[in-house]
């Protein structure tokens, strides 16, 4: 107990040094802790390996931040990002650490709405809220913050974020999957490599880049393995827990994370062999598709999995869209390895691209692979790219007799009752 006290004392001075608003931050951690206990720790039949993730979450603003600050003290740089288009391979090759900065809870909304229009998606608003409320130690620890010109909401919001942070780096992103689009991404990635080198003082050569590719691929492979095991019936792990693993992949040390996921997979394989699951066999199975779910946006998965269904896959940037493709690390030269990185990221089928047929094909493929009975499309209100795409996606799925429920929501809890009713009705339908 005493040790705990001195440890949290230690964290307080660390947070203070980072410039956090201690009182607001206490409140945030309190809410987050309660939310986690209610949603995660109340689940039954969890794999033992999830203990690692419980620990990581309990220390998400503590031990992990301490580690990052230790890395900084040893001369490593921290780079923060808001999008899976920021190539972690390049960051690692430059002796830096990449952390995700997207937030999944409303904070300091009154302040936010002085800077952003009310009808901005919750993801962007909460990101600003965490900055304005001074409650995100990752953002405050970052030596460089990367913004990318993806959706209109983000690209314009970065213009307003610029003055709030000292180190915003903007990366342009194409909108069309054409040769010209690819050339733009290539130019931007080379430019980003230069910026990382300038930040860290490290010259990125082929060997460093290959090592970066290797580390990130290993993480992706572990997540592929986890995803593949979810095809089993009964599902060996809940959608909530698998989502958490994907969420933690944005914060954790990549190598340690990879080991933890592989350990869980070992355990899940045994479960599957013993026909053990988190829910009983023949539980209705759902794929979630749409906007990314950052910590702690667990609202929809928690409603789904307390309404008699299990989530067997996430077609999302915090999920398969983010990790499904590997980077070919076999090339010899720096130039060729950079091209392999461009090839890999250019396949990401984010709805900011037009047209974006690969995404629909991927949703259908996931339904088949994970033997899902239906798709729940998760759209954040005011997110034009995903809400626009949701309607043709729903129509196309229904044509193929794949039931689809389209949900537009935000981070608030006001719609929980209504969502529960709709989701329960959907689960009845797909039974």
């Amino acid at each position, binding site marked *: 107990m005493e040790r705990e006290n001195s440890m949290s004392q230690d964290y307080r001075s660390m947070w203070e040094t980072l410039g956090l608003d201690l009182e607001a931050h206490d409140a945030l951690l309190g809410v987050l802790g309660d939310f986690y206990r209610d949603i995660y720790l109340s689940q039954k039949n969890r794999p033992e390996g999830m203990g690692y993730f419980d620990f990581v979450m309990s220390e998400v603003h503590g031990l992990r931040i301490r580690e990052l600050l230790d890395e900084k003290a040893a001369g490593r740089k921290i780079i923060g990002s808001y999008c899976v288009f920021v190539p972690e391979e390049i960051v690692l090759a430059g002796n830096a650490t990449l952390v995700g900065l997207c937030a999944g809870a409303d904070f300091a909304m009154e302040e936010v709405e002085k800077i952003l229009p009310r*009808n901005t998606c919750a993801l962007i608003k909460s990101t600003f809220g965490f900055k304005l409320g001074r409650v995100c130690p990752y953002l405050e620890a970052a030596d460089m913050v990367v913004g990318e010109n993806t959706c209109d909401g983000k690209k314009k919001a970065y213009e307003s974020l610029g003055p709030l942070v000292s180190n915003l780096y903007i990366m342009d992103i194409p909108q069309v999957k054409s040769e010209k689009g690819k050339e733009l991404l290539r130019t931007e990635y080379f430019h980003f490599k230069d910026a990382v080198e300038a930040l860290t003082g490290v010259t990125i050569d082929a060997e460093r880049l290959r090592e970066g590719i290797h580390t990130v691929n290993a993480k992706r492979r572990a997540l592929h393995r986890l995803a593949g095991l979810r095809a089993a019936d009964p599902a060996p792990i809940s959608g909530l827990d698998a989502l958490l693993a994907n969420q933690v992949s944005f914060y954790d040390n990549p190598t340690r994370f990879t080991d933890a996921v592989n350990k869980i997979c070992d355990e899940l394989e045994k479960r599957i062999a013993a026909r053990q699951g988190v829910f009983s066999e023949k539980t209705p199975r759902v794929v979630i598709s749409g906007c990314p779910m950052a910590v702690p946006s667990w609202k929809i998965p928690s409603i789904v999995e307390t309404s008699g269904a299990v989530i067997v896959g996430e077609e999302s940037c915090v999920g398969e869209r983010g990790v499904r493709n590997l980077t070919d690390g076999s090339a010899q030269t720096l130039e060729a390895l950079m091209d392999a990185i461009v090839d890999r990221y250019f396949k990401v089928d984010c709805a900011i691209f037009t047209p974006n047929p690969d995404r629909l094909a991927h949703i259908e493929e996931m339904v088949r692979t994970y033997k899902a009975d239906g798709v729940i499309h998760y*759209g954040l*209100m*005011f997110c*034009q790219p995903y*809400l*626009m795409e*949701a*309607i043709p996606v729903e129509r196309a799925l229904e044509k193929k007799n794949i039931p689809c429920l389209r949900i*537009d929501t935000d981070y608030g809890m006001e719609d929980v009752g209504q969502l529960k009713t709709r989701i329960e009705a959907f689960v009845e339908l797909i039974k």
Partner: protein
Amino acid sequence: MNASTEVACLLKSFGNMAEQSLVGLEMAKADGLKVVGIYCIFAPVEIIRAAGALPVGLCGKRAEPIAAADGRLPPGSHG
């Protein structure tokens, strides 16, 4: 005609601009001209006209047709 009635006359001709333009369009098409619809001022009208075609702005200006888009576009879209 004094200046103010002249202005009033001119202004009147704007009153049914849409209808007049439609008639103009029909006539142009009957004369074999191509009509190019545009949704944004980034479409270079110079080039359209230089090719002997007519540029027409297609952005919605009226509220009545919005209901017909329900179900195809999310509520709250700009356009």
